[in-house]
């Protein structure tokens, strides 16, 4: 049976990371942008878990970091959604391109 090694997991996490970055740069809908950010964070989580399991199996540091990141991501999502709601109230839209007043 095929057992995935470290490299497979790193490949997936890298793919997730760049999909996230791509979405972050190209999507116009703020909800999608937020989702892309979550993708980036989760790719990092994957890395932590993978390195912990394959390189330092007896330690828990990677696990703890992952839990931290999940907690932070939850808080971040709450803040981000609050911002999005406010933006919607003032602009009647959640398109990032529409909120372009903060310039020179």
């Amino acid at each position: 049976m095929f057992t995935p090694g470290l490299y497979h997991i790193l490949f997936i996490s890298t793919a997730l990371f760049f999909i996230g970055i791509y979405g972050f740069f190209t999507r116009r809908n703020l909800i999608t942008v937020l989702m892309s950010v979550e993708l980036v964070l989760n790719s990092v989580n994957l890395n932590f878990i993978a390195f912990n399991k394959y390189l330092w199996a007896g330690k828990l540091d990677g696990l703890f970091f992952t839990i931290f990141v999940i907690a932070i991501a939850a808080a971040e999502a709450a803040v981000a959604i609050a911002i999005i709601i406010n933006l919607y109230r003032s602009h009647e839209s959640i398109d990032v391109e529409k909120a372009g007043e903060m310039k020179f």
Partner: protein
Amino acid sequence: MLNETYLLLIPLLPLAGFVLLGLFGRKYFNSAKREAGIIGTLLLLTSAVLALYTAYEYFFEIGKVDGIYQKIIPFQFTWLEFSHGVSINMGAVIDPISVMMMVVITFVSLMVHIYSLGYMKGEERFSTYYSFLGLFTFSMLGLVMSSNIFQIYIFWELVGISSFLLIGFYYQKPSAVAACKKAFIVTRFADLGFLIGILILSFYSGTLDFHTLIERLTLPESSQFQNAVSSSFLGISALTWGVVLVFMGGAGKSAMLPFHIWLPDAMEGPTPVSALIHAATMVVAGVYLVARLFPAFALSAPGALELVAYVGALSALFAAIIACTQTDIKRVLAFSTISQIGFMMFALGVSNYDNGGLLGHSNLGYTASMFHLFTHAMFKALLFLGAGSVIHFMHSNEMKDMGGLRKHLPVTHITFLIACLAISGIPPFAGFFSKEEILLAASQNNLVVYGIGLITSGLTAFYMFRLYFSIFWSKAPSPHENVHGEGGFAMSLPLILLAIGATFAGFIPFGNFVSADGKPLETLFHWQFSVLPVVLGFAGIFTAMWMYKKENNLPDKMATSLGRFYKVAFHKFYFDELYEFITKKIIFNLIGKPAAWIDRNVVNGLVNATGNSTETLSGKIKGIQSGRVQQYAVYFLVATILVAVLFIYWWK
């Protein structure tokens, strides 16, 4: 011991008047009822009584120890300490000259306060006027009481500013504005010398205190003295430079050559102010300053003292010549003031520190100078106040408009005559005694100065009686329409009091009280010596009578026969034009214009270039801040990658 509370009250009461009238005068005091003036006068009356009491206490009760008048410092506190021993102290010094000055200042100022009640009646800024008078009196009293050379400088400037304010009192008049600026700038220029002089003297003596400074700079064995004498600049010792520069400040305030140009213009101020500031008190501050530092002049810098003598004598002569040609009565008096201050200056210049010292000369000159200061304050204030009455009556300053006023102004006429006799040195009026002492002192020391003094005293008699006859005789008494008398009791009382002073002040045995070293000075009266000056004085009077008593063409004839000389004197020896040439043509063109060019092009250019380049640059890069969030994210990513690359490949 002197009680310091009432001593402090003498200058502080006028200051209180200044603050009170300056802050609340126009709003709360009724100027039609002259409330402000009455308050100011009462405060000054108290001050004057206290000053007289102090003088009595000092001269007759406590001042004398072993037959020598002591210098008493009733109180002193350190105001600003620079380093150990060098500090600016605020204190009072009580010695013969400061007490004498206090009496003169408070008395003349009181007279002027009373007089102004009549003269300035109906003036819109009546209370402002009185508050300025209070400020002036305070500063002048502070000046004479100063125990520290820097303290005297502070009050010196305060006196300057109050003079500025009062000359420019009629600020709607362009000539008054120009005059007050001129007075301020000319004296400020001289004060620059004074300040440098103070710095030199205090640098070499290591102190700012008058007493210590004089002590250190006059004892030949002290190290400070040797230091100051041995270091020299342009072949003249540092000590001499110091006192000469201090004298420069004094010459500026006292309107000596070549700084005299401001005083005639200062006559634009109200006449009582001219009497107080520009005749009796402030302009003698220079004489007082030299007298205060007299030991330093006499013992350590005889060259500087000689300079004082010649500057004084030349000023006396030049001013007297100019006074003979002027037609504005206040200007005649202004030049006469310069001339009389010249007398005081050269009297100091020909004096010695102690009796029978160097070459057997005496210190009579010092006493004579202070005596003349005292009597001059009386009769010159009287002359100005008399002139004020005339101007009040005529509404004109021009001698040509006047004549035959003796019927209209009897009190002014008599008192003016007394003052003229006093200034001409006719016995037994006050000026006679002081002028005889001055001439006697000069004849013992310096015959050139003595000769100049003699000629000047003859001229003095001539121009004063020219003024007198032109005002009160000359034409037939015209039926003057605008008869409002002499301005009432307030204006005639000071005239009468000052006339009493001008008549009897000469009988005070001044040498007993004031002398350079504090020892009583026996002033012998040599009647043989007095014959010549008195004869010259009478000659001047009779010439003036011959020329001006009846209206005739003699003055014009005289003027044409003197031709060019008359013209030059009439134009005040072209001093104003010379100054104008130097400032406008030389200083403005050679220094002012290049400086302005540098300011406009180099200094401003640098600042503008910085501003402009910043603006251009920011215009170019402002596109970065586009307001598009995702663009920022791209910048962030690119930067992160760059940093990562840096870390990975260059850090290692």
